[in-house]
């Protein structure tokens, strides 16, 4: 009571107090007011945009005027599947390189993640974290550009090769370059989940394996690897599907070409659904393998 009468002095404080108790009595009101702006922004802009993209993949473009024809058709998907296999080959190539990158990253990441989780001291681990995460945050474009300079004819790679007496490697603008660059770009996404998974293996499991007479390799194969596998799968979720290349075609740059040069949004939209579908299937499999618990 005493507090109440003290507060009643200022009208502003009184109003604030009434508002607070109103919110306290009706929590749904507060929840609604908090949620409405972000939700509205997402539904009316982002979701609306996604839906319009999806819908437009069933439309077509007039070949002469370049105008959108709002007429329902499966033509875009038909073109994707049956135009002498070009687009299927591109999709296949994209998936192939994504798989190659995933495997490479798993191989590169696992020993590092294992070292970080089980061997490194506190300080070394913190340092490694920063060393892995900062490249991840630095600009995607700049990192790709960096590789372009390294792989160029007068770049650091050829210089290094020549120094040890090897001939030039002309990797620039080849599929090998794509493989290296994308493995590089996505590597931190693999390291972090694998680290999380390895860190969660109890020491006692490994000791028990040793007590039962298993040597290092056997312990690794029968104890560490099965327990860390969900982490590897989790890491592979983030490896690329939409990769864009320079010389050879991947889904990403074909999609961009169709928008940029031809203004053909419907066809691009249809093509872009391919990786989304592949990704959805992949995520379902990953969930079965327990990848989400490993994150």
């Amino acid at each position: 009571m005493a507090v109440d009468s003290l507060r009643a002095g200022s009208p502003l404080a009184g109003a604030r107090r009434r508002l607070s108790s109103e919110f306290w009595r009706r929590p749904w009101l507060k929840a609604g007011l908090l949620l409405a702006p972000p939700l509205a922004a997402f539904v009316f802009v982002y979701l609306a945009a996604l839906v319009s993209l999806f819908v437009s993949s069933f439309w077509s473009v007039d070949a002469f005027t370049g105008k959108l024809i709002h007429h329902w058709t499966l033509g875009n998907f038909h073109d994707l599947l049956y135009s002498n296999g070009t687009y299927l080959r591109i999709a296949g190539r994209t998936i192939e390189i994504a798989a190659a990158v995933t495997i490479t990253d798993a191989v590169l990441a696992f020993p590092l993640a294992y070292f970080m989780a089980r061997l490194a001291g506190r300080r070394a681990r913190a340092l490694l974290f920063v060393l892995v995460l900062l490249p991840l945050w630095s600009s995607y474009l700049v990192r790709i550009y960096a590789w372009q300079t390294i792989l160029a004819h007068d770049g650091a790679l050829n210089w290094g090769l020549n120094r040890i007496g090897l001939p030039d490697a002309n990797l620039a603008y080849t599929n090998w370059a794509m493989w290296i660059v994308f493995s590089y770009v996505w590597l931190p996404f693999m390291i972090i989940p694998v680290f999380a998974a390895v860190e969660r293996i109890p020491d006692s499991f490994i000791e028990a394996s040793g007590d039962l007479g298993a040597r290092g390799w056997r312990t690794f194969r029968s104890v560490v690897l099965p327990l860390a596998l969900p982490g590897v799968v989790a890491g592979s979720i983030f490896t690329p599907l939409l990769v864009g290349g320079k010389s050879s075609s991947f889904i990403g740059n074909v999609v961009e070409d169709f928008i940029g040069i031809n203004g053909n949004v419907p066809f691009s939209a249809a093509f872009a659904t391919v990786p989304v579908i592949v990704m959805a299937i992949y995520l379902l499999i990953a969930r079965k393998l327990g990848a989400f618990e490993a994150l």
Partner: protein
Amino acid sequence: MERSTTRAALLGWTVLVVLFLWTPLVIIAVYAFNSSNIQVWPIPGWTLHWFRVAWHDPDVRSSLWLSVKVGALATGISLALGTMAAFAIHRFRFFGRESISFLLLLPIALPGIITGMALNSFYVFAGISFSIWTIVIGHATFCIVVVYNNILARLRRTQTSLVEASMDLGADGWQTFRFVVWPVLSTALVAGGLLAFALSFDEVIVTTFTAGAQTTLPIFILDNLRQGQQLPIVNVVAFAVILLTIVPVAISQRLTRDTGVLRRGAATVTSAESVEITTV
């Protein structure tokens, strides 16, 4: 447990992978000081000349200014919306709660090109002409998640008994927020804001679809790379972009050491995409 040879091999591998991660960044930094205007490795000499040239270049200036404006606006919007969403999701249990957090994570779970195309076709259909706001909206959609995850992680680590105690002592909602919640939250907000800014500042994929004819700093780099022009200036700009994104991220990492937004903490607190937060 592991034999010493195994340990040494693991250490060696770790060092190699870290070198692999850092060499390209170091090389770009070195090229920024290249005295020749031809890209040859190793560089023939060192100079600060290109920094001066880049600083006085009108295109660099205008695109830097646009990037800073977009970054600031997108950060502001995502701080407001992300914090609101985090509070609502943390405090209340309601139908559709899971799907809302999934919805917020969608822009970074889907490849950037999809978000970009979707927004692009949305603007075209809705008859919205490209402006700074079309870029800001594009960036805000994926920046919100960073703030949201940061704040949510912090809220989950804050005991609700603090808030209850404050109310028991007679504080109203505003006072509780100002004197109890805010001090706990402020560093998480700063960290989330810095990460959002870093994300927005170097974003290129969504920007190409939402910028129209406008040029942000990453678009400036992309355009010049495509035409193979002004590479010395591009090197300097690329170096600046690396610094301008790494510094805020490093600061925010320090600010959130307890919640470890960049650490495993985030990965275990939220679901799948929180790892992605350490992203893009």
